């Protein structure tokens, strides 16, 4: 079973490289059943947006 420790690491990795198919499937099987990992994913997306703003770019809107 996927642990939140593993999923949160993969969610971070996904900001730096494309996930492999197996990794992607694991993340997307876990997210719907885990509020904490959804919260974590949202928070690191805010951190990414803040970094984009700091370097003078408009954050991508999704």
């Amino acid at each position, binding site marked *: 079973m996927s*642990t*939140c*420790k*593993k999923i*949160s*690491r993969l969610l*971070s*990795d996904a*900001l*730096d*490289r494309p996930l492999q198919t197996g990794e992607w499937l694991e993340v997307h099987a876990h997210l719907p059943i*885990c*509020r*904490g*990992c*959804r*919260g*974590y994913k*949202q*928070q*690191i*997306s*805010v*951190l*990414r*947006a*803040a*970094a984009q*703003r*700091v*370097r*003078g*770019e*408009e*954050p991508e*809107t999704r």
Partner: protein
Amino acid sequence: MTTQLSWQQDHHYLTGLRRDLLRFARLQLRDAVAAEDAVQEALTAAYTAPQQFGGQSQHKTWVFGILRHKLVDTLRARYRTINLSALEAEIEGEALLDDLLFKANDHWAADTRPRPWPKPETALAQKQFWLLFELCLNNLPESTGRVFMMREFLGLETDEICVELAVSANHCSVLLYRARLKLRTCLTEKGYDGEDCDEYV
């Protein structure tokens, strides 16, 4: 729409630009004087380069690009390689954070489980967010903070960072993971919940 006023004469724009450039440089260099110097150099370079721009946002991106190159050079000269034993120690020290965040089965502990923040456009308009973001960045351990800033602020790819610092790809991605985990935990611990702060910049 064409603007006749050149950016060198637009004081309002220049003031904002300088403030943003300084924040950016200060975060990277952790040295106010060096940051001033880098921003001054970037602005001087920008002054002397003839350029045509469609608008201020395009211009701003260009000046940031100049500054970014300067910062990469400065940081490269400053940090040839990461001290591997210091790095190991940093990663070891992280066990404490894991104990706080995760239960024995490696799932989030109920009381520290991450809760969503406001949407980026809301969070980035809050003074509280920026204060805590900067504070927490400065709290990151040395190597962790450095890797995070090279990736996020200088926009380097993970491969480049690994080569630059002579650490393995796995180390790099662990450090980035720890940086993000620590930052979000620090913001939360310092009271950022995004809920009851409607204080806009």
